[in-house]
Structure formats: structure tokens, C-alpha cells
């Protein structure tokens, strides 16, 4: 699928398939095209080329059917501020055409998922940022969707709140729902996604499980050296000489895939610290850009 806004290509001939019951993490920096892709799946952004199917529904011609099996947690909070948590969920149940007889139960379940049963009568404007996000997640599940789209579900939240939300998302994943989640947080992708697509400039540049991506592109272990730029330059040169990949980040350099390299050699280059490689190593190596955009 392709999407252009004027001369800007937001999604560039991107092709992706998600296996039922898995969590696909779309990992990429801000502006990579992740939100555009999410909106294309709901039919809120049209395509300039290609097609999208949600289950068996073609989004171009059956967008209403596609949306009826989708649950969406947007990046930007779009709840009615002046309504209570319960009212917001009840409204969503009606919009998602949950049968009237089942709405009360669906709202109660969503409140429980969001851990907000005791704040149900509170206006949304009085809830904290984390609570609002939990409510948005609960709302995305109100119609028992088959596929859930989570667009940067924990963006801008502190680490404690983020790990609370991860618990909820993990619960969704375990319930057998197919999850498509965009994120620019490495840890989020590593913890929650079964399968990761690294997206940059509207293209998928790598795809696989976190383990596969690390093994394929950066190896399993890295060593990190700190020092002034000229020292880091020297280490970079030595790494190339030893046939190793490296990446710079501020006052440090990471030499990647060192699991088969002699410890003495690495020690001789300077004081180091060892760590497992991560998806950020993969991303930076593939794109030359940082995930923080």
C-alpha cells in the first residue's frame, strides 16, 4: 500500500501481513508512517495504491465491516472530557453496535480491564494521564474486537504507568486477539510483540521476532566504550578491522555481535561494559537514525 500527502510519501509501497492471534509491533521513529498506516487500516486515510484487508474485509469497499471487527486505541486521546468514564464507554459500546442487552456487561468489563471500576462515575477530565490511557485501552476492547490497533499506547507516560499498561496489553494478547501496535519504545516492542516490523520513511526495512532481528543484524552481545570522540573514532576503526559492526551514541560507541570475539582483544581497546544487543542496535544500524527521531 502507498499513501502520499502532496509530494511527501508517508507510506511507501509497504506490504505487511499479520498472523491471527499474534502481536505485531511496528517499531519506528516519529514520522515513520505508523499512525498513517493505522488510519489506513480503519479507512480514515485513503490509499493512493494497493489494498488492505482486515480479516476478509477489503477496507476500500467494506470499511464499515472492517471497523466492526476492529478495536482502536489512538495515539491522541479523543475521549469526551466532560463525560464520565462510564458514559464514555457506554457511548462507545453504542457506536460499536454492541447489542443493547450486552452493553452494561461490556462497560463493566471494560472498566475492570482499565482498573477503573471505582472511578466509573468520575468525569474523564479529572482522571490522570495514566488512567485516561487505561480507559482508552479498555474502550478499544468494548466490542470484543478480533483485531486491535494500538497507536503508541504508552507514549508520554512515566515508566510505572507504562508497565501497568503493558500488563493490560499483555492480557489482551493472551486472550487470543490479534494486536497491531505501533511504538517507538524498544522495551515496549521487545516485551509485547511476537513479531516486529521496523518501519522507517514509510517502508518496512526489517521483519522478524526480536531474537531473529538481533541475530540477523547485530548478533547477541555488545560491548560499550565511553570516551572522547577521538578515542571512539579509534575504536570504530579497530572494530572495522576486526570485522565487527559498531554504532555511536553521544559519548559512547557500541561494538556489536561480539559473542565470538576474544575478550582480550576487546579489553585491549579500553574500559568496556557488556550488554545484550537490543532492537535499537538493529534500528540504528539499519537506518543510521535514532528512534527518538
Amino acid at each position: 500500500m502507498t499513501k502520499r500527502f502532496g509530494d511527501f510519501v508517508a507510506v511507501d509501497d509497504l506490504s505487511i501481513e499479520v498472523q491471527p492471534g499474534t502481536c505485531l509491533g511496528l517499531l519506528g521513529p516519529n514520522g515513520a508512517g505508523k499512525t498513517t498506516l493505522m488510519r489506513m487500516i480503519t479507512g480514515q486515510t485513503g490509499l493512493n495504491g494497493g489494498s488492505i484487508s482486515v480479516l476478509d474485509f477489503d477496507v476500500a469497499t467494506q470499511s464499515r465491516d472492517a471497523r466492526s471487527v476492529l478495536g482502536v486505541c489512538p495515539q491522541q486521546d479523543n475521549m469526551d472530557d466532560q463525560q464520565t468514564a462510564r458514559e464514555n464507554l457506554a457511548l462507545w459500546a453504542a457506536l460499536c453496535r454492541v447489542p443493547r442487552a450486552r452493553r452494561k456487561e461490556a462497560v463493566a468489563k471494560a472498566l475492570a480491564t482499565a482498573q477503573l471500576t471505582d472511578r466509573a462515575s468520575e468525569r474523564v477530565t479529572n482522571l490522570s494521564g495514566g488512567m485516561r490511557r487505561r480507559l482508552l485501552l479498555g474502550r478499544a476492547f468494548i466490542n470484543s474486537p478480533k483485531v486491535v490497533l494500538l497507536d503508541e499506547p504508552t507514549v508520554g507516560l512515566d515508566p510505572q504507568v507504562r508497565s501497568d499498561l503493558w500488563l493490560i496489553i499483555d492480557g489482551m494478547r493472551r486472550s487470543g486477539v490479534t494486536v497491531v501496535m505501533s511504538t517507538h519504545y524498544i522495551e515496549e516492542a521487545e516485551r509485547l510483540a511476537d513479531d516486529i516490523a521496523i518501519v522507517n520513511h514509510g517502508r518496512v526495512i526489517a521483519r522478524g521476532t526480536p531474537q531473529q532481528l538481533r541475530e540477523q543484524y547485530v548478533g547477541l552481545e555488545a560491548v560499550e566504550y565511553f570516551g572522547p570522540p577521538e578515542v571512539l573514532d579509534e575504536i570504530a576503526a579497530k572494530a572495522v578491522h576486526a570485522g565487527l559492526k559498531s554504532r555511536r551514541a553521544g559519548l559512547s560507541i557500541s561494538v556489536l555481535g561480539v559473542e565470538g570475539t576474544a575478550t582480550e582483544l576487546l579489553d585491549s581497546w579500553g574500559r568496556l561494559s557488556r550488554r545484550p544487543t537490543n532492537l535499537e542496535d538493529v534500528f540504528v544500524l539499519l537506518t543510521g537514525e535514532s528512534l527518538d527521531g
Partner: protein
Amino acid sequence: MARFDARSLPAIWTRELIIFKRYWPGTTFTAILEPLIFLFAIGLGVGAFVDEIDGMKYVVFVGTGAVATAVLFSSVFPGMYNTFIARVFQKVYDGILSTPTTTAELMVGEATWIATRTAVYGSVPMLATIPFGLSPRWSMLLVPLICFISALGLTFLGQYISGVVKVIDSFSYFQSALLTPLLFVSGTYFPIDGLPRWVGTISNVNPVYHCIELVRDACFGTLSLASLWHVLALVVFAAITGKLSVRVMTKRLIT
């Protein structure tokens, strides 16, 4: 584009009802008070100098005209402001359109709600005119329906304007250049017969004029086949503005 499905409308009305239950005192106060001020200030004030117009007391003439003032204020402004705020500031529409609801259903749902509300608000000036000499008659029961049809098109017009402007401040251009003339060249405060002939011709495309004519026909028992022309004009106006509203909103919301 998905076919229009009326099953989406109750959910839109549910949202409006929740908001209305919270804010109805303020909304109702403004919607009722402003036309009543017009009725008393102009009806009684100017009425002290002008006895009768077309054989009716001036206050009764203005009182029935004030129905259209109430209709205009209660429909076009919510169509403009509520729509703009929900779309641009709150992003609520983005959320709604990620559910199985379409832009057309969203706009029609909101417009029918506002028009229903306006059917009540619009009838208040008429009721307030009864003590001043407007004789009650059965055909007055049609006035809420007339208000509804008129408000539907005017709400769609408001929605269309809210989709055309980039910033909310631009509404003032439409208020001055479009809405004020609609109100004053409609026969609310004085008969348009006294104006140049071309003004009368233009008033045929003014929904407020058709609303007032129908309201007066219903209030004075002068409903006839000719009244159908005004109904037709209001229905055509609503059909055109409805199309325009959905078109501009689709352009804004579906990127």
C-alpha cells in the same frame, strides 16, 4: 463509500443527550432568552410606534417572526461551533469514525439532534406571544415541525461553514456577511414587501424567510397549497446543505 445506515444515529444522539443533560440549563437559557428579548424589545418598543402590520398587531407580527430568530440561533451556531470544537479541538470525530459510523451518519445524527432541540426552542417565542394577542389555533401544532425542517438545513449550513474555515475566528465573517442578512431580509421585523423588488427575489433562497412564512401561515390559519412552496424550499435547502456538509467534512476527516 458505505451506504447510509440509520442504525448509527441512536449512538450519535446518545452522545448529544449526555452532553445536553449536563449543559441544558445554559443552552436553553440562551436559546430562549435571546428571541424573547427581541420579542419584547422590538415587539413592544417599536410596537409603541407601529400599530399594525398586514392587519395584525406589531408585537404579534414580531412574535411569530422571532420563532425564526430562535431557529436560526439555535441551529446554525451549534452547527458551527460544536462541530468545529468536536472535530478540531477534541478530536472526538476522529474517534467516532474509527467505529462503524460514517461521516454522513455523524453529520446527519448531529443535525437531527440539533433540529429536534430547535423544534422546542423555536416554539417558545410563539407561546410567549399568545398573551399579547396571538390567538391559539390547532395549526400552531405544526410550528415545531416547521422549526425542525428549517433547523435541519441551517444546522447543515453551520456544519459546512465549520468545515470551510481554518480557524474558529473566521466564523465572524460568516456571521456578519451571511447570517445577519439572512435574519434581516426575511420578514422577521418588517415585511419584505417594503424593500426593493430584487430583495424579495433573493429572499426566495433564504430559508429563514420560508420558515417565517410557514410559521405565520400556521399561526394565523392561512395554510394553503401555496405553503407547500415554502416546505419544498426548506427541504431542498436541507438537501443541498446536507450534501455540502457531508462533502466538506469527509474531506476534512478522511485524509
